[in-house]
């Protein structure tokens, strides 16, 4: 089947002097290079030699990438770092070079879905990122990657390749194409002006033929080199029996160029080299703008990925050694010098310092850390050198979870985008049909004008704008929100946020910080306040109630408490120094103490026959909670508090934040019931809560925002995660979401209106091909530019001075 002078694998001619061969099926087959040899041997060794018998096209020549390059990805130690496994499913994030439009997405998704074991494939054409999920053990990662490569795209597993390098290469390629198209367009237009002038003033026919020939020479590289993405895209579409937006573009380009070339050589009719070059240039300009937006959005998660340093200083006994971060294990002790990045998640073992977590939380102020505090891998140690104990590495780190969530949002395509894609596909079919009808009608009525009118229809109605309208807007606003500290993890979240009519928040840990503090101890009896606190701490020692945490900071030595029993919602009782002692609510302590006038406080301490102290407890409000509630109200979203805490505490927080409606003592089921009831009344509910404890109610709400606290992040199912503690990001996000949806609507409306208006004009021959090229490209550029406005969101209002934290009784 293959001639001996051609490579057995890639079917290219074997260069003179090369003598490499591969043993296959008992025969020696000549190949052209070591790459082909390796590839052929890999296929043979995998028992897939039949490939060579049944293939109907030569294999792509594995230039830089021999086929077995992907096999490395099947090694468990590599997969451990790249593949996320949840239950029986494994998933991986990819950057796909060469993905340019929805049709590419469609092709890759359909092809991969046919691979046995693959559960889900999502590719976002705007970001060029994809996510593949498969049954662990059913499909091999290398198979998936090779399948993608076979389609003509180059997959890059995120985390292994420097994605920046890919972006640079893509940008350089695009710049060159754009330059050739622009330069060629200018030359051809210059000649076109001369020829138009010649048509009026009279021109030597030989000179005219000469100018046409020169125009053709200049237009050829523009079509072949600059226009290649469109031609290739269309070819791919046709092979996949799919109608993408490249198809009408390519048909128009080839028709116009072909007819012009023919007319040049025959010396008759019109030439359209000016339209061809202009069309290519303007289309490329639109794609270049979209590509730049994609790279900038991608740079957010790339920046996060790059946060993690490559090496760290591990301490072994008294010696220290520099090791790759990948070699760190849970329990290792690591030295982090000042100014360096914490390599992985861990607990501060020694020393105190401040950490800059701004890239993860959007919070610009450094956070104080002392021994025992947890630090996040990727944050920067800006204070003193410290030692830390590793608690999580690799995929379990907060950083990895953040990047995964961000990528999930970027690869998922919201409902509105899927709808637009389906439309675009139908639209292309409609365009081709319309072009055929127009061509037929003109041929009957006025044959000489048929060609131009058909060309104009094909060019002017290219649905590029329709396809770019949504993904560009979503990408731009997701990136803007991530910079502000709110991580959108589901693509539909933006749409849902924009439609929200009511906000339900959890109290503890959401509106308030969640760590109660002792703010005062008023002496009521004979015992000194310090001793009172020690007694209280002794009683609370064994209690799991959040309030008990407030007493952990009380300095020892603590008196001995025996027979401690906890009375839910009331307090704690025990014997201290042999006397029955109670701490808790006023009525609870009053049962063993004489009646008397008491100051207002959160907790009371007393022992048989004697009041000891009134202890002030506060759970400080989150910074910005008051402003957030006020701003939400301004946006038309009333806030409600749904808390499991007792009424007095909830009422106090409600009063402090200005929330009118509050519900207390709700079990998780009650919260779900509350949200369901609100939704039943036609409200669209945003639920803000703790990612783990409020998981059921978060799942029930139309859109959920989880407070991103460390380890819980990895398991969150919320639609969005608030990375910092600043609730003001929530009203900010709702504004951005509303603007995003507005921009998408504008874009879709514009694209539809433009196409509907231009189609009849072009059909009646009122638009010459060059004007059609300008109109169509201007439409796409307008849509992209409109979406990019979302990036220029004013930064969240963090500079305003916070109201002093209101005291809430707990």
């Amino acid at each position, binding site marked *: 089947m293959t001639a001996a002078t051609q490579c057995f694998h890639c079917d290219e001619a074997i260069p003179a002097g090369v003598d490499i061969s591969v043993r296959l099926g008992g025969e020696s087959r000549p190949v052209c290079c070591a790459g082909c040899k390796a590839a052929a041997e890999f296929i043979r060794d995998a028992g897939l030699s039949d490939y060579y018998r049944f293939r109907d096209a030569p294999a792509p020549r594995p230039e830089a990438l021999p086929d077995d390059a992907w096999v490395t990805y099947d090694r468990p130690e590599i997969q451990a770092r790249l593949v996320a496994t949840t239950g029986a499913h494994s998933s991986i994030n990819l950057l796909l070079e060469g993905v340019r439009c929805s049709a590419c997405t469609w092709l890759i998704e359909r092809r991969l879905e046919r691979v046995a074991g693959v559960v889900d494939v999502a590719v976002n054409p705007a970001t060029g990122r994809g996510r593949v999920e498969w049954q662990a053990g059913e499909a091999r990662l290398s198979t998936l990657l090779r399948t993608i490569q076979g389609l003509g795209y180059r997959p890059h597993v995120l985390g292994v390749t420097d994605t920046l390098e890919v972006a640079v290469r893509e940008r*350089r390629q695009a710049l*060159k194409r754009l*330059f050739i198209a622009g330069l060629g367009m200018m*030359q051809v237009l210059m000649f076109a002006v001369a020829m138009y002038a010649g048509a009026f003033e009279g021109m030597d026919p030989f*000179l005219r033929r000469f100018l046409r020939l020169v125009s053709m020479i200049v237009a050829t590289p523009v079509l072949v080199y600059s226009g290649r993405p469109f031609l290739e895209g269309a070819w791919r579409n046709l092979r996949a029996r799919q109608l993408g937006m490249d198809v009408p573009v390519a048909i128009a380009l080839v028709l116009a160029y072909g007819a012009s070339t023919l007319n040049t050589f025959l010396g008759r009719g019109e030439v359209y080299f000016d339209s061809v070059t202009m069309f290519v240039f303007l289309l490329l300009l639109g794609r270049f703008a979209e590509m730049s937006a994609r790279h900038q959005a991608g740079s957010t998660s790339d920046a996060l990925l790059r946060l993690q340093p490559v090496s760290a200083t591990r301490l072994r006994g008294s010696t220290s050694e520099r090791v790759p971060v990948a070699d760190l294990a849970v329990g290792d002790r690591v030295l982090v*010098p000042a100014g360096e990045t914490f390599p992985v998640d861990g607990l501060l073992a020694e020393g105190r310092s401040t950490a800059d977590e701004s890239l993860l939380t959007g919070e610009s102020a450094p956070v104080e850390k002392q021994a025992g505090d947890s630090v996040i891998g990727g944050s920067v140690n800006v204070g003193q050198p410290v030692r830390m104990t590793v608690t999580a590495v690799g995929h379990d780190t907060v950083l990895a979870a953040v990047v995964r969530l961000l990528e999930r949002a970027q690869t998922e395509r919201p409902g509105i985008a899927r709808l637009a894609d389906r439309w675009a596909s139908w639209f292309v079919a409609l365009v081709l049909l319309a072009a055929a009808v127009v061509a037929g009608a003109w041929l009957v009525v006025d044959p000489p004008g048929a060609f131009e009118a058909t060309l104009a229809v094909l060019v002017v109605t290219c649905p590029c704008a329709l396809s770019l309208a949504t993904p560009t807007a979503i990408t731009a606003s997701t990136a803007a929100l991530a910079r502000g500290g709110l991580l959108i993890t589901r693509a539909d979240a933006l749409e849902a946020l924009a439609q929200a009519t009511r906000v339900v928040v959890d109290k503890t840990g959401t509106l308030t910080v969640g760590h109660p503090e002792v703010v005062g101890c008023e002496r009521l009896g004979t015992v000194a306040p310090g001793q009172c606190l020690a007694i209280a701490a002794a009683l609370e020692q064994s209690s799991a109630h959040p309030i008990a945490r407030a007493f952990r900071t009380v300095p020892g030595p603590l008196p001995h408490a025996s027979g401690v029993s906890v009375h839910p919602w009331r307090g704690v009782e025990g014997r201290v120094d042999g006397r029955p002692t109670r701490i808790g609510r006023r009525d609870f302590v009053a049962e063993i103490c004489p009646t008397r006038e008491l100051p207002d406080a959160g907790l009371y301490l007393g022992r048989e026959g004697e009041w000891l102290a009134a202890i002030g407890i506060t759970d400080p409000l989150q910074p910005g909670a008051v402003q957030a509630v006020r701003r939400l109200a301004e946006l038309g979203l009333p806030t409600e508090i749904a808390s499991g805490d007792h009424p007095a505490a909830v009422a106090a927080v409600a009063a402090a934040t200005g929330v009118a409606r509050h519900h207390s003592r709700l079990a998780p089921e009650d919260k779900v019931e509350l949200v369901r009831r609100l939704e039943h009344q036609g409200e669209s509910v945003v639920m803000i809560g703790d990612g783990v404890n409020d998981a059921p109610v978060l799942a029930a709400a139309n859109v959920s925002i989880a407070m991103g606290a460390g380890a819980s992040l990895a398991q969150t199912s919320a639609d969005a995660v608030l990375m910092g503690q600043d609730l003001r990001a929530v009203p900010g996000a709702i504004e951005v979401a509303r603007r995003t949806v507005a921009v998408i609507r504008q874009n879709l409306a514009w694209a539809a209106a433009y196409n509907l208006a231009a189609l009849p004009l072009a059909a009646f021959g009122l638009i010459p091909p060059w004007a059609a090229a300008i109109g169509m490209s201007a439409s796409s550029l307008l849509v992209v530019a409109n979406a990019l406005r979302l990036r220029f969101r004013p930064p969240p209002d963090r500079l305003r001075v916070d109201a002093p934290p209101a005291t809430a009784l707990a």
Partner: protein
Amino acid sequence: MSILYVLIPLGLVLVAAAAWAFFWAVGNGQFDDLETPGWSVLIDEDKTGEEDAEEEEHERP
């Protein structure tokens, strides 16, 4: 007007030269970063490799 038969091919040669020059510049990374080089002239504290190395020494206790 027969001079056009000389000037236009000459123009094409110039265009080809411009294209070549641009390709060289792109390949050379001249267009990869259009912002930083503009700022770099304003940053006058040039550090030598030795100074950097010294600083690293200080950071490591």
